[in-house]
């Protein structure tokens, strides 16, 4: 970028860009054209704001400039396609909007529209995540490419393919019908949570140049919540992210190694994030039937509020996992329920439950079974078998810090760990 804006301008632009983009997309019905127009408006802002100061209404300013660019683009387009009479009308309309300067043209619905578009069901999660970071997160293609450790050209292609897929799906750029809205909102939340976990678990790579995906996901969850303030599940999702992210400072040791929940130094947890997350989830739960994000947030809150592993309210954690199990039918949740069960009923009962779960073909042979079994065997004092299970589990993960953790666990149990910490 030619003009270098100050950080505060950058922040201001990033905050306003999604709504402006949503409004422009709604106006012209063309996501790509809207994005081009926004880019030009942002460029204009980079040039004009540092000299003249930020306008009183930055969003309105960007929207007006964007509308003018849209009108200009349509004009040159119509020079080629004069036969299409409606182009003239659209152009006149865009001009009128540009000149009216009505900020009421931008609504929270425009942010929502953008979320629904970027997390379109026709896209793979892979593409939707990239597009969401671009359009709603305001990240550059280069930044997104770095976050996923792929070449910039690859990411540029992925994003442009995603846009094309949306166009090809033939759905107009409009808010989904009321009947479809809940399931579309679910897709949006799923993408944001995937993005969060990508940052949360994929802690490898040169972190100095990596955009913090979990922080981006939290930022976007806040944006979604501002657009859907009455939705308890959206609040639950944001709470879940905050309550998990609060443990981030304690999640890795001095050499970047993984520190599991029960070994973390709780003094290093982020109290402000815990307070905010707890407040959010408490309020959300008062509204009635809890969805899967609220349940997970409630579990996270119980961990975060406990002064130690022993003082954790395990019976309540277990009860919440049972609810979550019923709501999702997901065997991974059952696995977590079994880990909680060990803290309530002891490891022997939990090992029995694990043997039963293993009959579920969806999870049989998954390395996470070995992880939990290793842990339970260790609790039960079955050292030899625990070592074997930790080793087997280590072969099952493609995540480097996680594999190191499991290998180290086995080595420590065997007494061969030269680092020798308990």
């Amino acid at each position, binding site marked *: 970028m030619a003009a270098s804006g100050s950080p505060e301008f950058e922040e201001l632009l990033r905050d306003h860009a999604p709504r402006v983009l949503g409004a422009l997309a709604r106006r012209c019905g063309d996501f790509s054209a809207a994005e081009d127009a926004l880019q030009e408006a942002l460029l204009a802002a980079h040039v004009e704001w540092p000299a003249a100061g930020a306008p009183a209404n930055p969003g309105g300013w960007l929207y007006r400039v964007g509308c003018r660019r849209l009108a200009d683009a349509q004009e040159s387009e119509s020079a080629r396609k004069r036969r299409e009479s409606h182009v003239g009308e659209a152009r006149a309309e865009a001009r009128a909007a540009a000149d009216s300067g009505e900020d009421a043209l931008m609504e929270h619905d425009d942010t929502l529209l953008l979320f629904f578009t970027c997390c379109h069901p026709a896209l*793979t*999660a*892979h*593409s939707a995540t*990239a597009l969401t970071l671009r359009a709603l997160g305001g990240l550059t293609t280069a930044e997104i490419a770095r976050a*996923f*450790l*792929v*070449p910039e*050209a*690859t*990411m*540029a*292609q*992925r*994003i*442009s*393919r*995603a846009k094309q897929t949306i166009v090809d799906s033939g759905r107009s750029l409009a808010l989904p019908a009321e009947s479809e809205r809940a399931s579309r909102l679910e897709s949006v939340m799923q993408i944001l949570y*995937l993005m969060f*976990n*990508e940052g*949360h*678990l*994929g802690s*490898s*790579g040169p972190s100095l140049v990596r955009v913090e995906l979990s922080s981006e996901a939290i930022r976007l969850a806040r944006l979604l919540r501002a657009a859907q303030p009455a939705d308890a599940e959206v609040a639950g999702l944001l709470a879940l992210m905050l309550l998990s992210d609060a443990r981030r400072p304690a999640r890795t040791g001095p050499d970047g190694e993984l520190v599991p929940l029960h070994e973390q130094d709780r003094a290093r947890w982020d109290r402000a994030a815990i307070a905010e997350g707890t407040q959010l989830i408490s309020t959300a739960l008062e509204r009635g039937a809890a969805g899967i994000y609220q349940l997970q947030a409630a579990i996270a809150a119980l961990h975060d509020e406990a002064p130690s592993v022993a003082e954790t309210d395990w019976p309540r954690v277990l009860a919440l996992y049972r609810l979550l199990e019923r709501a999702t039918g997901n065997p991974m949740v059952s696995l977590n329920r079994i880990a909680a069960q060990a803290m309530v009923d002891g490891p022997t009962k939990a090992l029995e439950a694990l043997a039963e779960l293993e009959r579920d073909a969806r999870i049989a042979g998954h390395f996470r079974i070995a992880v939990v079994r290793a842990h339970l065997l260790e609790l039960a004092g079955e050292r030899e078998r625990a070592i074997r299970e930790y080793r087997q589990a280590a072969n099952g*993960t*493609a*995540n*480097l*810090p*996680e*594999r190191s953790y499991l290998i180290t666990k086995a080595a420590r149990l065997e007494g061969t760990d030269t680092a020798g910490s308990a």
Partner: protein
Amino acid sequence: MKFMLMMHGTRKGWEALSSWSPAEFKAHVEFMKGFAAKLAAAGELVMAEGLDVPMNAKVVQAGKGGAALVNDGPFPETKEFLAGFWIVDVPSPERAVAIAAAASAAPGPGGKPIPIPIEIRQVMSAPPV
């Protein structure tokens, strides 16, 4: 998730290469070029490289004081060689398998699929989502 797709060749295969007709060879190269271009256009390609013939390979080991001990060629008993590789970033393991299957169908003599064995390995540090 990222996967490395490794294309293996056999000693016999390398030797047979010299008996391919220019047209057969060209078709094979064109296929590989087009294949990489398609992966790039899909936003899935991280990198792709073809390797020089194994006859030019050297095996290096650290000797005393870190000095390089260099031997010509791969181990004599080696029957399969890495001929080239792709690293792809895809939404699922199934997609990686599909890509490997498509690569394996590269044309050989008579324009028929060879078919090349492609080994798939997940790249570590991809988060387990």
